[in-house]
């Protein structure tokens, strides 16, 4: 007991001297950028500023666990970088992670726990659309900014609320609109689509069909597949023999079966294949059964293999998260990342940093300033904060737009063959969140 008391006394004395030192530092900071360099050393001692608390709603368990693992690793890496840069508005960032089990009901509970128990400043990082759709309304009721990294069109559609944003990753509608011309031009005009039988799949079905038809293509078959399906051969007869392209987007662990059975069914007579990397996130392209994808094309948001998008920022980001040149963990080459999604976690944290600093946010009473400042932002510049590339942000629909990549499977690796422009994926906003009251 005695030693504890002594410790406390010692600490508080020290704090006093630190405070004095800080005053001096503050004066210095007024003269220039010195504070930026000194800040990390200040935090290393007793923190003079309360931390900014950010809650990561993570899919640690359940069907989204592969993504959850990498979202968490990316978030921790980003927080480390942000804190090393001096935190957010001079305050250190404290990351709190809660598991939602990739379950919509638990998602709501996690939002409540973050808002009422942990009292975080912001919640972010939700991926699976059914969890987003259940959690976002609760975040809106609790009036706490909720920044998702989900890809779904649900944010941009206007279905959610003024508290929900998606500034770190593009949505399915933008993705498919941007890549449709390349597919129709290079692979063919008779297209069959295989997609999951729920909201995420319908976004693909509706927006890709619309974009492709405009370009003169014909959608010859639509094959929805229930998310719990484990065998696929029985669906392939629905695809007419004379299609040019099979467009496939699948989510979940059954994708290896899917590709294998597609290979068995079509054999050498196969049409061209265009898929979404979503199917293969966390999966080694050299896995048995994936031979059949050789030569086929995949959409990527950020190329998994190093050097395919060669910028210093991408390199630094890859290094910071601990990803090797093949997109796997540096410590375990079999632990493959979800490279085309997790950058969104990184970028979203840097968006929070930028907006907090621009808006002068100090605590929940400043939420209005945070929301309105973010809604007014039009561009996020490419840099360490945005390694995937520059983003155009549309405040009305709370959605970011960015470039997309098309890669070919060559030698069981992915090689970028096309990069879209941001404007290729832009569409006319169908909603306006800024008109909703706060």
């Amino acid at each position, binding site marked *: 007991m005695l030693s504890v008391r002594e410790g406390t006394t010692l600490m508080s004395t020290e704090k006093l001297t630190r405070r004095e030192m800080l005053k001096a530092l503050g004066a210095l900071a007024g003269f220039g950028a010195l504070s930026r360099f000194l800040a990390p050393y200040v935090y290393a001692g007793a923190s003079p500023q309360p931390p900014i608390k950010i809650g990561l709603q993570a899919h640690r368990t359940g069907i989204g666990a592969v993504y959850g693992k990498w979202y968490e690793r990316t978030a921790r890496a980003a927080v480390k970088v942000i804190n090393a840069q001096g935190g957010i508005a001079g305050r250190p960032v404290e990351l709190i992670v809660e598991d939602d089990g990739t379950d919509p009901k638990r998602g709501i509970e996690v939002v409540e726990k973050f808002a009422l128990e942990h009292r975080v400043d912001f919640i972010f990082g939700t991926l699976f659309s059914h969890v987003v759709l259940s959690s976002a309304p609760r975040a809106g009721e609790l009036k706490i900014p909720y920044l998702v990294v989900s890809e779904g069109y649900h944010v941009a559609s206007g279905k959610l609320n003024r508290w929900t944003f998606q500034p770190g990753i593009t949505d399915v509608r933008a993705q498919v609109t941007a890549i449709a011309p390349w597919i129709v031009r290079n692979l063919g005009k008779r297209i069959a689509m295989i997609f999951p039988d729920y909201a995420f799949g319908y976004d693909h079905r509706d927006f890709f069909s619309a974009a492709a038809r405009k370009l003169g293509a014909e959608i010859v078959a639509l094959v929805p597949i229930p998310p719990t399906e484990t065998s696929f051969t029985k669906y392939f007869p629905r695809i007419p023999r004379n299609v040019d392209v099979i467009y496939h987007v699948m989510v979940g662990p059954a994708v290896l079966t899917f590709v294998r059975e597609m290979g068995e069914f079509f054999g050498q007579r196969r049409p061209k294949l265009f898929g979404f990397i979503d199917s293969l996130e966390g999966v080694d392209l050299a896995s048995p059964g994936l031979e059949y994808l050789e030569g086929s094309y995949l959409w990527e948001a950020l190329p998994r293999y190093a050097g395919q998008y060669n910028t210093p920022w991408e390199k630094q980001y890859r290094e910071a998260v601990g990803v090797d040149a093949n997109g796997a963990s540096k410590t375990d080459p079999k*632990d493959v990342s979800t490279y085309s999604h997790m950058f969104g976690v990184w970028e979203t944290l840097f968006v929070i940093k930028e907006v907090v600093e621009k808006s002068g946010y100090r605590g929940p009473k400043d939420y209005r300033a945070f929301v309105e400042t973010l809604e007014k932002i039009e561009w996020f510049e490419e840099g360490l904060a945005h390694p995937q590339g520059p983003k155009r942000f549309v405040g009305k629909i709370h959605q970011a737009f960015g470039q997309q990549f098309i890669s070919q499977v060559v030698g069981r690796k992915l090689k970028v063959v096309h990069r879209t422009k941001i404007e290729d994926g832009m569409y006319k906003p169908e909603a306006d969140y800024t008109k909703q009251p706060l």
Partner: protein
Amino acid sequence: MTFVSQLVLALLEGTVSGFILALMSLGLSLVFGVMRIVNVAHGEFFMLGAVLAWWITTATGSFLAAVIVAPLAVMGMAIAIERVVLRPIRYSPGATIVATLGLLYLLQQMTLMLYGPEARAVTPPLGGTIELPWFGYARYKLVLAAVAAVLLLATWGLVRATTLGLRMRATQQDPEIAQAFGVPIHRVYRAAFALGAGLAAMAGVLVVPVQQAHYLMGLDGLLLSFMVVILGGLGSIGGTVIASFLVGWIDGIASIFFTPTVARIAASLVVALVLVVRGGGLFGES
């Protein structure tokens, strides 16, 4: 594709999935028949079989090793579970459901911690496809069906023609009278539970080369197995096997004509209708 070829494919697929389903459901049915308990964690034995198969195949390079070792390992685990979990609660039907539900989460989360959330595949021990005029079909799937058929026959033989089988049947009919006649029912329980787990694990091992091992895969088969066991009549081996094929074929054929979701509804509807007419299932006591 012509109608005939589609039908051929649907029947082929229905048969293969019927065999897997039969292996898995037979274990569930045995455990229910002999022990009068519902093992909610049955699907996890299937999952453990698959995960161990991946591990063993990756470590030794031999799929055959996995076929032999994985089911035995799961059977060993089942014996321990019977002793540590089921016997202390005296196989009480209500408590067993709660206990095995807990077991389900325990096994699932332990696998998540040790094996990870990834889906992993194994190269089929027998590659290649058989080229039919309309489509290709994996050779391994036919082997899988044949192996499953042999195992089903062996299980049937065990229950019909061995002393253990006789004791199982006696315990199923009336545990108290069986005990009075000197049947060591605890040992019979243990054997039935281990056999059930072993069959599920074997189904898991066999599907890894055509599907993949994943920590949540136990849930996929569990619902269908329950459906099959109820449809076939609880505790009836023949009923379980026939019901497996019925469910497999209905699912396969209905997914040609309707959307997959409708196919699922159709299969469930058939089960419901059978139960309306025959409350005890196709071959069960009503």
